[in-house]
């Protein structure tokens, strides 16, 4: 292993600019003459907008223009579409009404943008927005996903019962038959709480229009600028694709929330052309709370059937998924193909049947959030398995091992074909590190201090690098899910990598450079990673679903193969040897069996001067591209074990011990991977103990600031013990599986399994706040007294 190649814990090259304030985020972009946008947003969760009177607003000093949904309609700027078609079990297509970028008719959640005011300054725009007189006809709102289907309140004309789809996956009859045979059935009601993503950098957009060239440019906080350009041109009619440039510069965290196209960047781009100057908007934090797509929000009934020996026979699930007021870009696939397809977990389950009803409520749209469907599936499976083991009196680790998938490839009953893994290896290693055998002693010691100590397992599996394109297309995806790369070797031998992946915290500028360093034998300081600009990178699918390593780097690797092949040809001419005799190692081409060699930079220079090879046979230059469409998902898996101590007097749960043993396949940079695991666990612990978005009955978001929405902080977390096992991924040449979401997927059931172990009963939901735990402790005491 070289110092900067694959497997080296190289410090992140991008961090110096981030931590010294030298990053260039969207809000840092300022264009001469720019104006500012402020959005007037619905104060009501459900209301018809009768009229927007802008006469007072237009008199506010510094107000340049006011636009409403009617202006968008006039210019045929379309609504935001749903990007994944789901069919209901009766075969009918989903009901997926578009989301107008400014309200046309009805506002359907608090925060739905009604009008935009363009001002000379931010203050003028805001003052103008406040001066708008909006005449509402307020309707009753429905925020409870369990009541919306039967509610007399209808959000959309085209969505009867406020339902997007009633979908199913798996074999209903076989599952029912297995349940009939079962000796034991474990049944749970599970709530997966609604979360607010809270990227550190709020969303922002700067739209600009060049009347000379007719090109619109938008700087925006996007995880996938090419997809944003495609949606804005093909579906929204903002500008033709070749006249629209989307730039996502440094982006400060996404967690899924910056995948989607939002009204604000569309309106800023369109309005820039209308007013003839650049238009900038940056969200305030509370604006983020009420407009960024939220995450999760499921209510599930789940059942697990076992035989007398504790062998799992079948699993059955009914889930209601809250989509919020509109179907956001990928919202419809999250509770279906990213959720139910993972319900087999790490287990060999002969029959699975899942039903998912996706419903609309007067709340912010819900879409993918770190893990996207897999945390929901993992929570269902890992809670069921843990509770089942306890009910059967089988040690939860033993129960899991008894039911693990052991032979690969393994076809589950819910689409997925697991390609490689060793689940017992991760579990055993985690048990060793945490000293599972010594837990009883630790529990007794805690009891002497008045604390209830519990231990919880989570042996999760997830699926990254959603693919292949033809398969996802057959399931309803509106796009392909490949990735592109271009390797540009400069005459002096340094290298620019153009990638369709997008880094917004992942450290691609380091890890991608490590791949190049490994392959070409040059230092990582000789490599630049270019991403996030549709004028520089031809096309790409962006970063989400932990796909950039497995898919994005594989595309780079394939382009590097081509560069290497061509460089070898050139080297053979330089060395006057047969191409078959040329070896490439440690950055130099040599003639095997001799000491004749040329370095990679020498070959690069010769490629461009083109003096020493026949350009009729070999084209000058050294630049290659590749598109990579994976053959399968990748399947990271692992075991997290959490120990918690509860103060029964106050209900406070303290996470006191955490071991994570993950199988991410081949790891490029263990330090960055460990950081991803830490961050993922923190978000998972946040979901399990602290975070929840709360709406009141009228549809106001009660938790719209950090005063009420509780983010995890360092003092909520212990020092994690992080380790790995390795089974290389067979579906890509690098053996990479992906690590970005694993922590957030694994953590919540580990926490709740530990709390319920400590409590001695299963009566707790997420988030397990002190009050909820205190109530659960009292319930436990009441039960014991019976």
């Amino acid at each position: 292993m070289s110092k900067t190649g694959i497997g080296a814990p190289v410090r992140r090259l991008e961090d110096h600019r981030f931590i010294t304030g030298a990053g260039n985020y969207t809000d840092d972009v300022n264009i001469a003459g720019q104006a500012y946008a402020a959005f007037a947003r619905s104060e009501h969760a459900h209301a018809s907008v009768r009229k927007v009177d802008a006469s007072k607003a237009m008199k506010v000093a510094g107000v340049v223009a006011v636009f409403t949904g009617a202006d968008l309609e006039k210019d045929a700027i379309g609504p935001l579409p749903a990007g994944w078609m789901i069919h209901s079990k009766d075969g009918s297509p989903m009901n997926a009404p578009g989301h107008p970028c400014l309200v046309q008719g009805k506002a359907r959640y608090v925060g739905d943008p009604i009008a935009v005011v363009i001002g000379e300054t931010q203050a003028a725009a805001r003052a103008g927005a406040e001066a708008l007189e909006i005449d509402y006809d307020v309707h009753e709102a429905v925020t409870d996903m369990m009541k919306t289907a039967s509610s007399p309140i209808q959000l959309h004309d085209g969505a009867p019962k406020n339902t997007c789809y009633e979908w199913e996956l798996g074999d209903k009859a076989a599952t029912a038959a297995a349940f009939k045979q079962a000796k034991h059935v474990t049944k749970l009601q599970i709530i997966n709480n609604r979360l607010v993503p809270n990227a550190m950098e709020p969303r922002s957009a700067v739209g600009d229009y060049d009347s000379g060239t007719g090109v619109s440019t938008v700087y925006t906080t996007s995880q996938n600028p090419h997809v944003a350009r495609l949606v804005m041109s093909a579906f929204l009619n903002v500008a033709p694709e070749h006249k629209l440039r989307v730039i996502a510069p440094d982006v400060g965290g996404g967690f899924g929330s910056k995948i989607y196209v939002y009204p604000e960047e569309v309106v800023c781009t369109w309005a820039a052309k209308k007013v003839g100057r650049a238009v900038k908007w940056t969200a305030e934090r509370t604006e983020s709370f009420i407009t960024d797509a939220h995450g999760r929000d499921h209510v599930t009934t789940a059942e697990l059937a076992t035989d007398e020996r504790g062998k799992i026979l079948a699993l059955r699930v009914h889930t209601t998924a809250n989509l919020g007021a509109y179907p956001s870009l990928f919202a419809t696939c999250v509770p279906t193909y990213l959720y139910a397809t993972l319900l087999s977990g790490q287990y060999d389950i002969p029959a699975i049947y899942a039903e998912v009803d996706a419903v609309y409520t007067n709340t912010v749209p819900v879409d993918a959030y770190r893990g996207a469907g897999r945390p929901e599936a993992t929570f269902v499976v890992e809670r069921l398995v843990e509770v089942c083991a306890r009910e059967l009196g089988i040690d939860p680790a033993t129960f899991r091992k008894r039911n693990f998938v052991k032979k690969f490839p393994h076809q589950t009953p819910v689409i997925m074909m697991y390609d490689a893994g060793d689940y017992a290896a991760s579990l055993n290693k985690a048990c060793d590190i945490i000293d599972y055998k010594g837990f009883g002693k630790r529990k007794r010691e805690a009891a002497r201090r008045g604390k209830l100590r519990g231990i919880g397992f989570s042996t999760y599996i997830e699926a990254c690098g959603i693919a292949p394109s033809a398969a996802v297309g057959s399931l309803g995806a509106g796009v392909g899910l490949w990735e592109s790369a271009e390797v540009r070797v400069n005459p002096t031998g340094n290298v620019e990598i153009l990638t369709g992946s997008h880094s917004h915290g992942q450290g691609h500028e380091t890890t991608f450079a490590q791949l190049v360093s490994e392959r070409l034998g040059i230092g990582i300081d000789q490599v630049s990673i270019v991403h996030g600009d549709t004028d520089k990178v031809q096309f790409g699918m962006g970063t989400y679903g932990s796909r950039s390593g497995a898919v994005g780097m594989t595309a780079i690797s394939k382009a590097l193969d081509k560069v290497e092949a061509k460089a070898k040809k050139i080297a053979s001419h330089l060395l006057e040897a047969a191409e078959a005799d040329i070896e490439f190692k440690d950055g130099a081409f040599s003639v095997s069996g001799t000491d004749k060699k040329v370095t990679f930079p020498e070959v690069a220079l010769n490629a461009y001067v083109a003096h020493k090879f026949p350009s009729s046979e070999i084209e000058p230059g050294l630049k290659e591209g590749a598109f990579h469409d994976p053959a399968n998902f990748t399947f990271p898996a692992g075991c997290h074990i959490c120990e918690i101590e509860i103060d029964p007097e106050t209900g406070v749960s303290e996470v006191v011990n955490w071991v994570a043993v993950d199988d991410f396949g081949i790891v490029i940079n263990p330090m960055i991977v460990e950081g991803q695991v830490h961050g993922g666990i923190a978000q998972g612990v946040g979901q399990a103990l602290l975070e929840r978005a709360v709406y009141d009955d009228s549809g106001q978001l009660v938790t719209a600031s950090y005063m009420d929405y509780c983010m995890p902080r360092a003092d909520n977390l212990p020092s994690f013990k992080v380790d790995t096992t390795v089974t290389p991924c067979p579906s890509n040449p690098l053996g990479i599986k992906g690590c970005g979401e694993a922590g957030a997927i694994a953590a919540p059931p580990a926490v709740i399994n530990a709390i319920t172990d400590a409590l001695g009963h299963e009566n707790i939901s997420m988030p397990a706040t002190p009050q909820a735990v205190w109530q659960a402790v009292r319930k436990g005491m009441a039960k014991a007294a019976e």
Partner: protein
Amino acid sequence: MYEFAYHRPNSVRKAASLTASGEAKLLAGGQTLLPTMKQRLAAPDALVDLAGIEVLQGIELKGRTLHIGAMTRHADVASNATVREALPALASLAGGIGDPHVRAMGTLGGSIANNDPAADYPAACLGLGATIVTNKRRIAADDFFTGMFETALEDGEIITKVLFPLPRRAAYAKFDNPASRYALVGVFVSKRGRDIRVAVTGAGPCVFRVPAMEEALGRRFSPKSLEDISVDAGDLNSDIHASAEYRAHLVGVMARRAVLAT
């Protein structure tokens, strides 16, 4: 934020005269006022910044009374050697307010003038029997905190310092709101001769004392004395973070922990 005039007087007298007219607000540490203004929920036409007035600063022990200037920052109270030695319960309370940013800016006078129902300092003032000194008079803590965000302060009245009589024993036990880290329930307990005080913040609309606990501790100053005493949940706050019942329970737990810590 809306536009406003900004004044930075160098005397209490000038500050008082500047607040006499219009919708002017005093700016102490600004940890509540400024966020409220940024959210455009408050729109004073002028801010009178008290940071330039020297007499509002400083910490001094005079006999058995600790004098703390109204503009003294939480971080300074928390780290001050005199406070840490003479009244460690107060230093530790100040060190637990908000976060480092809030402690670097927020002030004693600003906190008690605002009288947020979940603020920490009102519990210390009431729990120690402090005297609030203004440019006009002296007000006993028992008379100062009159209701939710309400105090005995009149228009143009400016807190100059707070006098804390030194107790023999004192401690503050706080149960943090997990999100805001204000007190979900905070209980300050002190004993000074026969004067025993139990002051509760966070639980109700305004800081309050618990006479039944004070009497019980008067008989025997021990956590055990409080075991059978409960506060009435009917008078307490209920919100998404904690029901009144849970808060009532926490008052008991925190009071016992405070007594244990004295």
